């Protein structure tokens, strides 16, 4: 199998561009699970200003999720918007800067080396700017606008903010100019990152892909604007509240608004799935069903932390809530779609020229579906143990769960490797 650096076609960028981001993301997912298991005892004592926690968090957010999303968007955006990627060369420049920046940032978090954090963070921000320019120019030439595009525009806006905030926080570690507002900026960084960049991207892509792959008679549209409005309102409200009174009640109110938006999204997806023509449930849908449980759990836990007695809000429980959000909600949504994206990438590169000339495999024949379902089961079990252990203050249970998820990530990596060994 050859990797083409140039080439690509009108709607499809060169194979190596999305593929490189996806592989980088996959490696970091493995490292994240190892780091979480090893660092968990220290997270339950303190998670802010904890070098292990910072490293682990950014292995997940930057190393895994952001890499995967960027790689996937290079593949998906030109197709979804029926246009061509504005610049493949800029994409490779983005890749080089991003990987270098993240490679500097991650050990710098562990070493708590402020100047290296600033350096790595600057490279990452610069790479994000290149990505945003490329996506922006691509979107500008879109022939077709639909609700998925608006979700994407919003998520790219939040990406710019979260990257900028990340750099500000890095500078602050060296110069301390944020003072007491440091915590507020950190929370904003998390809210914009998870709520804005991750969640809106996931919702926008799901709105487009799930009806397509299920061949559903029901096309979402009626409530899509409500979902977009409510989720943005929740994110915006949380941010402004942080800068204002930071009232717990207002915080809870905006979280509830976000929760309603998410519930409407899931209602629409249920309608899509109920009216599908394909009888088998796509893997991405099965992973999404599990993810749905976890986002609702994570938001509920967040509301409990906000509204409950102060003594409930222990570092362990905060970590548990964030883990539910990250490994419960975001990771399955990403992994479920990777079971589409990886095979499709390889199929278009290796088999598309042969269709009609010789027998070629179906996408689902390129990987072991049974293994994927087992991975989902292990991941779910592991996440249940972690969250239950952290909220029930039983650390051994949480550690066992984290290692179970390490097994899931290794199996996932192996499963993806077998796709490319064909």
């Amino acid at each position, binding site marked *: 199998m050859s990797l083409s650096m140039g080439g690509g076609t009108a709607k499809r960028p060169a194979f190596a561009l999305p593929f490189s981001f996806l592989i980088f993301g996959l490696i970091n997912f493995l490292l994240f699970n190892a780091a979480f298991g090893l660092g968990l005892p220290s997270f339950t004592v303190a998670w802010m200003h904890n070098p292990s926690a910072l490293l682990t968090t950014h292995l997940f957010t930057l190393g895994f999720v952001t890499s995967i999303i960027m790689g996937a968007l290079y593949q998906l955006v030109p197709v979804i918007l029926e246009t061509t990627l504005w610049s493949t060369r800029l994409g490779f420049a983005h890749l080089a800067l991003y990987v270098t920046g993240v490679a500097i940032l991650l050990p710098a978090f562990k070493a708590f080396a402020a100047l290296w954090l600033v350096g790595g963070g600057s490279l990452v921000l610069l790479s994000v700017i290149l990505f945003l320019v490329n996506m922006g120019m691509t979107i500008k030439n879109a022939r*077709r606008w639909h609700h998925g595009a608006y979700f994407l525009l919003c998520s790219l806006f939040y990406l710019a903010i979260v990257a900028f905030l990340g750099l500000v926080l890095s500078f602050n570690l060296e110069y301390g100019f944020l003072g007491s507002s440091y915590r507020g900026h950190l929370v904003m960084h998390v809210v914009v990152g998870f709520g804005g960049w991750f969640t809106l991207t996931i919702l926008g892509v799901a709105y*487009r892909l799930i009806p397509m792959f299920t061949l559903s008679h029901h096309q979402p549209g009626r409530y899509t604007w409500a979902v977009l409005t409510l989720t943005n309102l929740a994110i915006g409200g949380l941010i402004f509240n942080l800068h204002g009174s930071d009232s717990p009640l207002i915080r809870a109110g905006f979280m509830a608004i976000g929760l309603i938006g998410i519930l409407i999204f899931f209602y629409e997806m249920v309608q899509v799935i109920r009216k599908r*023509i394909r009888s088998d449930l796509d893997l991405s849908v099965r992973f999404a069903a599990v993810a749905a449980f976890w986002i609702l759990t994570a938001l509920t836990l967040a509301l409990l932390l906000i509204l409950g007695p102060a003594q409930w809000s222990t570092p362990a429980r905060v970590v548990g809530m964030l883990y539910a959000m990250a490994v419960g909600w975001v990771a399955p949504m990403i992994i479920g779609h990777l079971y589409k994206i990886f095979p*499709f990438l390889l199929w278009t590169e290796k088999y598309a*020229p042969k*269709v*009609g*000339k010789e027998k*070629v495999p*179906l996408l689902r024949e390129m990987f072991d579906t049974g293994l994927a379902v087992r991975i989902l089961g292990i991941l779910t079990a592991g996440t249940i143990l972690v969250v239950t252990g952290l909220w029930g203050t039983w650390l051994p249970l949480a550690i066992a769960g984290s290692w179970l998820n390490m097994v899931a990530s290794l199996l996932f990596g192996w499963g993806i490797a077998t796709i490319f060994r064909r």
Partner: protein
Amino acid sequence: MVSEAEALEALTQVIDPELGVDIVNLGLIYEVQVFEDGSSILAIMTLTTPSCPLSESMPRAAENVLLSLPGVKAAKVELVWSPPWDPSMISPVGRMQLSGGR
């Protein structure tokens, strides 16, 4: 000389890699015309959605299949978006395949 029915039959070799159903039974082939004593074929097709990631490979595959027919020297596949495809265009055979019968 190749007939339109034979050309249509040949196109059932082109399978949508995501759905596992051929493009004829998916209802993606709108029209097939055979010209000049069977040496030239025009097929008009669509895809399940304009966003379909296979918008380049499926028409090319259809051309490859048509060109492999005996006596065919030229084949052209035109991709159209009107009328838009919808699931009701799937044939009973296609529906059976999608619902798990093979």
